[in-house]
Every structure is written in C-alpha cells, then in structure tokens.
C-alpha cells in the first residue's frame, strides 16, 4: 500500500459545535438521520455538598469528532457479504453502492458506527474522505470547515510525526480492534477509552 490517509483532531481546540458534521452533510447532501461525521459530547464529575454549599467536583466535558477511520483493519470490509467495501491504495475505505445490498452487517460490525443506512438510496453509506476533493488536491470538507482549525488530514505517518499517536479518547472504542487511521491530540482532561469515568451526553449521536 502506497500510503494510508488519516484524519487528525485536536481535542484542545474542539468546542463541540459540529461545523464539521454540517459541512460534511452539505458537501455530501446527506439526509437527516445519516451522519457520516459525529461529534460525541463526553462528561464526567459530580456536585457535592461542602459545608452546606453545592460545589462541582471534577466536573469536566470535552468533545470528540469522529467519522469513518479508514482503518488499517477495516472490519466492515471483512463482514460484507457482497464485497461491496474496498480500500483504495491511499487507504480510503469505500462502499460501492451498486454492489451493496443494504444488509447492514458493516454497521453492526464497525465499532465507530461509521457505515449508515440511507433510506432514500436503500444502501449503506459512509464517509469517503471527500475522495473527489482529495483527488483534486483539496482537503476534506470537515477539515476545511473548522473555525478553530482543530482538524487536519494527510498520510498517517506524517500525521503521527506531527501530532503523536494517541487514538484512544473516550467514548471511542479501543483502537486495537480495527487500527483506525486517526490521531487525536488529547487535552488535559481527555480520558482513555478504557477509563469508564464519564458518560456520553448527546444521545442524538448514538
């Protein structure tokens, strides 16, 4: 494989606004119910009584923007009964709509919830890393959209060299499952996928 393209998200700079999700839906013309990019709001801590006054104890929140991770081990590809899912030479994982029978095995297998059924088209769909833009040398719509410049993309080795290797923020799953092509920069409160410390807040992203 020539290279593996990857997304990068700096959790320090993410406000949870979902401009990335909206830009994605605008570019790919996605209907309500299909969200190729999701932004998970994660929260922890509690309120405690201190001498008769209620105060917050370790209350924190952060957001994790997540789409198809174009994994090195794409489990969606393994389970697809019609071989409709393939991986390009640059690592982008694609669903061929003509071959997809909409059985949803891929959506059940993917720990990131990336493949999603489009009822209008009757097929599975997912983030294609804006392959048309990438092929023209442009950046994916989500990366381009961030008002706070929290996102980047590029070859995984370069992304890792620039930003490190962390790919494990809660509430995302353990990266060992699929070896996602993604790097996150944690902020000082980011928990790991195994911490079990907080909870997912925005239920619309489930």
């Amino acid at each position, binding site marked *: 494989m020539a290279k593996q393209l990857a997304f990068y998200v700096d959790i320090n700079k993410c406000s*949870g606004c979902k*401009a990335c999700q909206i*830009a994605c839906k605008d570019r790919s013309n996605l*209907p309500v119910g299909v969200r190729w990019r999701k932004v998970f709001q994660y929260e922890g801590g509690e*309120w405690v009584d201190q001498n008769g*006054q209620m105060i*917050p104890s370790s209350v924190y929140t952060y957001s994790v923007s997540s789409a198809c991770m174009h994994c090195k081990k794409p489990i969606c590809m393994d389970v697809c009964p019609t071989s409709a899912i393939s991986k390009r030479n640059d690592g982008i994982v694609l669903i061929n709509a003509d071959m997809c029978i909409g059985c949803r095995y891929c959506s059940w297998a993917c720990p990131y919830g990336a493949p999603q059924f489009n009822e209008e088209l009757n097929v599975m769909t997912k983030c294609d890393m804006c392959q048309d833009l990438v092929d023209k040398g442009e950046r994916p719509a989500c990366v381009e959209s961030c008002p*706070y410049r929290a996102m980047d993309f590029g070859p995984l080795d370069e992304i890792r060299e620039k930003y490190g290797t962390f790919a494990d923020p809660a509430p995302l799953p353990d990266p060992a499952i699929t070896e996602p092509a993604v790097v996150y920069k944690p902020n*000082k409160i980011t928990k790991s996928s195994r911490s079990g410390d907080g909870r997912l807040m925005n*239920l619309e992203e489930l």
Partner: protein
Amino acid sequence: MTQNNFLTKALNDTVMTRRSFLKWSAAIGGTAALAGGVDYGLKAIEGAAAAGEEQTLTVGCYHNCGGRCILATKVKDGTLLRIVPDPTPVEEETPESPRAIPCLRGRAQIRRVYAPDRLKYPLKRVGKRGEGKFERISWEEALDTIASEMKRIKDTYGNEAFYFNYAWGVTWNGPDGSSIIQRMLSMFGGYVGYYGTYSEAAYGVAMPYITGGYVGNSADDIVNSKLVLLLGDNSLVTRAGGDNGGYWYMKAAEQGTKFIVVDPIMTETVAATQAEWIPINPGTDVALIAAMAYVMVKENLYDKEFMATHTAGFDENTLPEGAPRNSSYMAYIMGKGYDKVEKTPEWAAVITGIPAERIANLAREIASIKPCAIIQCWGPQRRAYGEQFVRAVPILAAMTGNFGIPGGNTGQLPGGGYCPMGGIPVPPNPVQVSIPCFMWPDFVTRGTDMTVEKDYIRGASTGWSATAGDTTTAQENKNLRLKSNMKFMWNHGGNCIINQHADVNYTRKVLEDDSKLEMIVTVEVGMTPSTMYSDIILPGTTGFEVDNIITGEGHGIKGNHAWAMYNHKVIEPMFEAKDDVWIAEQLADRLGFGEDFRDGHLTRDDWMKDMVAGAQSSLPDFPSLEEFKEKGIYKTKGGKPFVGFEAFRADPVANPLGTATGKIEIYSPVLANLKNEEIPPIPTYIPEWEGVSDPLREKYPLMMMTTHWVARSHSTFENVDILREAHPQCIWINTLDAEARGVKNGDMVKVYNDRGVVHIPAYVTNRIRPGTTNIPQGAHYTPNADGVDTRGCGNTLTNYRPTPMAKGFTAHTNLVQVEKL
C-alpha cells in the same frame, strides 16, 4: 389550528427537499417555468458560466450573530451545490488577518435557501389573527392592499400610528434591509421608531453612565493577556466563526493564557478554553463583584493612584460635588452605605453560591496577575436589574489597573475593526417620538398613555443607537406623548412579534384583538410564529438570490481588522420571492412618491455605487463596484490590537471620558438625580424578582435562563433540518434536580409557571448549577390544542417586565417548575 397544521396545509402544494429539488432541476433542464406561471428559480444567472460549469462565488452570512463571516458557494446551472469557507488562500492567512471561516450555521445556509417551508407567494390572512388561515394573493393585490391600508390608517390616526418593529433577520448593509423600507416609511410621513435592542438594552443605556461610551480592547488583544476573566461570555457559541471572539479566545488559550469563567453554565467557552469554571447563581454577579472589591480594599490589593485620579465616587474623596456622605462605592462595600452591610466574601457566598474562599482568591488572582482582561458579555444584563451588572464590571477593571492597557480591558465587551460603507439614505423621520423597542405591546394597548417619565419614550429615532444621556435628556421634554396607539406595524425579517418577545401567551392576547393593531405586514423567507400573526405576508429573497453588500460588524467581538463582502446573486429568486428594494419602490409608486424615493437610482447598481463611494471616501484603496464584485472580498489592512481608553489612562484631564465628571463614574450624579431606588447612583446588588432569593421559589423552585444556542442565530436557522438534528432543542437541568424529579437524560418534561407550559426533552447534566435550568432561545413557538408549546420556545415562560432604566428584555430572569411527562 396549530402551526404544524398550518405549515402543512397552507404551504404544502410544493414541499421540496433539496434532493428532490436537485432532481427536479435536472429533469427540466434548469430553465423551465413550472405550472401556474411560477418561476422556480432554476434559471442560470445572467452572465453566469456556461451550462455545466461550476462557479465559486462569494455570498455573505448576514444574520444577527454579529459574525459576518466570509462564505462562498459552489453553483452550477443556477443550482447551489455546496458552501465553501472564506476563499482567501490558506497561505495568505496571517496571524493579524485570519481567514474568516464560518460556523456551522453558515455552513447550513443552502438548506435554508431550499427549506421546504420557504414562502412561495404573497399571502393574506383570512381567519382570525393567529389562527393560521391564509390565502394566496398576487403581488399586485398584496401591494395595493398595503398601500390602501397605509393611506386609510394615516388618514384616520396619523403617522404616529405607524411602527417599524425591531428586527434583525437580514442585517446586510444593503441595498436590501431595513433602511430601504424605513426610507419609504419616512417619505410617507414617518413612523414611530424604537431605540435600544433586545440584546443589550441595559448595556447600551447604562454603560455611558460609567465610562461615557462603548470601548473595549479589540478581541485580538486578548492574546496579550495572561489572565482572562469572562462574566457570562460564551463567545465560542455566540460569535462562533470568522475572526470573532471565539477564534481569539481559542488562540489565547492555545498560547497559555489562563481563562476563568463566571457563568451558571459550564459553557462551550469554559470547556474549549479549558477555563476554570466558577458556577454562580444567576443574577448575582454584582454581589460577587462587591465582595471582590471588598477583598482588594481589605488586603490593599488595588491601584489606589488610578482610582484617585481616574474615577469619581469610588471613595468619599472622589465623590462628585453634591453627593451625600457615605454614598461612595467604598462606603457601600465597607458597610457604611445605605444598607450598612459589609460586602464580605461570606456575605456574597450566600447569595452567589460561590464559596467565600474562592471569592477571596479570585479577587487576589485578578489583582495580581497582569495584564488581565476582565470582560462582560450581554447575558447577565438581560436580567431584572441588568444595568447594575453593566456598571459594576468596569470597577474591577479599574481597581486592578487593567483599564486602558494592552492585554487588559475596560470591563466591556471587546470591540473590533469596522469597514465603513455607505448605506441607503433614510430621510429624517418626521415623527419625533420613539419607544424602547421591547415595549411595543404597550404602544398597542396604551400608546397614548405612555410617558417620558415612566415609560422612557424619547425623541426621534431610526433604529439601533442608544445614545448616552438620552434617558435623562428626555426627562427635560416631559410633555412628549404619542398621538395614537399603534395601528400599523411593518415587520421586516423579524420574529419579535411572537417568538422572540417575552411572554408569548400575553403577546398573543394583545395581537388577537385586531381592532387594536389593525395591520401587520411581514416580509420573510419562511414561516415563523411571527408571520403566523401577520395580516399580509410578503415572500422575501435570501442572500443567495440578490446582490448585496455586507461588512463585518463594528460592535462585535472581533479582531482589529475588517472586511466588506460582495454578496453575489447566485440563483434566481425562489418562487415569487422579491427583493426589498423592489417592494419599497412598488409601495412608493402606489403612495405617490416613487420618483423622490428613487432619486435617480434606477437600478440596484446605482444604490451599490453610492455605497461603494461611501467606502472610498474613507478607504482610498477600496475598489470600484465592478472590481469589488469580481474579487468578492475587500479586507482592511488591520493593524495592532486596539486598546480601549488608552489616551484617557495616559492623561485623564486632557482626554476625559464622556461622563458628567469626565472620569470613570462609579457614582453617577445624573442617575442620583433620578431618585429611583431601582436605578441607584452606584452599581448595587438588588435581589431580583424571580431570582435566587424570591419566595416564589417555593412554588417554582428552578431559575430558568434562555441563552443563545449554537444551532441558531436567535430564531434564524430554526427551520434547518440538519441543524436541528445536530443540536436538538432541550432544557438543561442539573443531575441532582433531575434525579429529584425522576428525570433521566432525554426524557420529555413539562416546564411551567403562571405564564405558560412547554413540553421539551431534558438534557441532564452536571454542567449547570443545581437550581438553575436553561431553555436555549429561538425555537419556534408551536402550540398544541391546549396552548402548550411543544417545540421549546423559552418565551412561553419569560416575563414581559423590563429592566428599570433601559426598559430592556429580562430574558434570563424566570422561575419555573419541571415535571417528568
């Protein structure tokens, strides 16, 4: 009939999703007119690229967030494809001039243009007002009806029966927008204007009484701060895109500036700047400030010299002449003032809910870490006694020595650069009376009884400005009266008739009696609760359907540079939508002054050339209209960050402030003369009605705020499906309050008080203080048959009770109860 029924029945003859629209467009080759002679806006624009060629054109984001970010859109064969951000090349981005990347709202603009609820043709009301029964009429009939009603109402009641309602749905410079309509109304003999805003009424009116004007450091100066104290500022949501506050706050946080945020909510700004969160009881900031001042005095931590030379009434030595003894701020905080109570941290802890030690430490921090930017935003002044908060914050900026220095701030909202641009000239309004914008229902019910002394009606006004001194100078003209109650209202792209005004159920009653306010004309692009209460609805164009010019806003939280955007017409107007210039011209013709109205401006370009000439008069390098249209964007060169009141700091005698004493007027002799307990001369903590200590909490225990929401600019974008999906409307409630009511995250709850009932999902979180709830403002009021709002419009529960001095909206001061449904 409920609104839902209305929306489906009155408008459903062509409900298109964007997808079906695109398919339709392809099927008919992009040029055909469809059945009924309606042009569906599929024609490629004149002079546009050949069929099949994709173009990228700048359009503006022109709503009332204050952002004015730079958008462009891809368009092909007269159909919008997708939004792209500020097309300035990434390589050309510099720290002084960042690309103005739009927020999620801007990115969703295409869904707003192609929204299924776009108004397609003029409508007239046929049922009772508010009932939702409308009939399609022609433009000819609509304009003839409006013109004849205007003449009748003028003949019967005079021009003082006309009102141009507060509205900011379209806030480009023009030629479209409010000014072109106001020009028409002014030439018709005038109309009652308004002053102030729904956003910052108390700020606008009260701030001049302490600093003489509105001057903060520019937002890009914040990168020079070591510490930032934000009071009720959530710029990462309210100014989310562009080079607005959110961008610069993040930039500063990235560089290591420490943020402390005082807010009942752990906002996006708290989270993303990784700030220290000080959760305060709503409406108690003035008590916190008094206690912090107390600590600084007790521990000798404040800039004594600055307070002696630059302020009036901080202590007894600097009290203005004629002020009684023990009326200074020092007397107030040290227990010698009118209430004889020392404003100790322990005193404030009970009120604010913040531990006394944290209050004392916060005072020490802001007094010792320099430079420190102390910033207030407008949320805490949209409260029962908002004026007190406005005037209290600059005291901290002054005491800590951060007033007028780089990296500091004046205690105000950061300012920003502004690109000057000519506009549509509005002749002086012949009607010499204006009202506080929030008080328009009183103009309907008892306009002729409104007075200068009680209701603060004023002399002529054409819009936004709240000039220093007006409250008191108006007192000199005590006999000013309105000659009529309101009989005609023009509502231009506004949703303050119902949705964005307080106490929806009261406003409904005022409007449902159409013998009072006889005619409401609304220009809108889609159905809103306010169009539902209109008599004639005119379908307007979105920014994608007409050429306009937009500039970055002057009073926003922005960096110290600015831009102007050429907002291209990228598609033909949808359905029968018409632009504002055409509407105003048509009415001017019917009213008999068309020629004067045009004044030689025969095309849209004629107006735009004047606007460009206005820009060129102060910016010699501003291009010609043709060149501006071609390039799409003009950016000023910017410069180093602006420092508010720097000259005053350097020499207060040579560069006095615009206050009575020329100093930072902590004691205002002008306000003292009002002799009004709710408008005291020094910033004073006044316990709120429906606030933390109101006995009414036994019945309605939860305080409720109605803050801005990331998915909307006020109520604009509320109809955009993907924004509603991304950020579902909900009520924020603390985990403990939810547990006590058996409510889990996502459960439907009933929120109610004596004014109304809302059904809404609960967002159960630790990010809001116990005892406090929040329904983000702007959701469209959608009553069911029982009058229960089913969408989550917070104004079903808010109070039509203004602030004492500015008569401003008290949107965040409410008590409610919450029950699981």
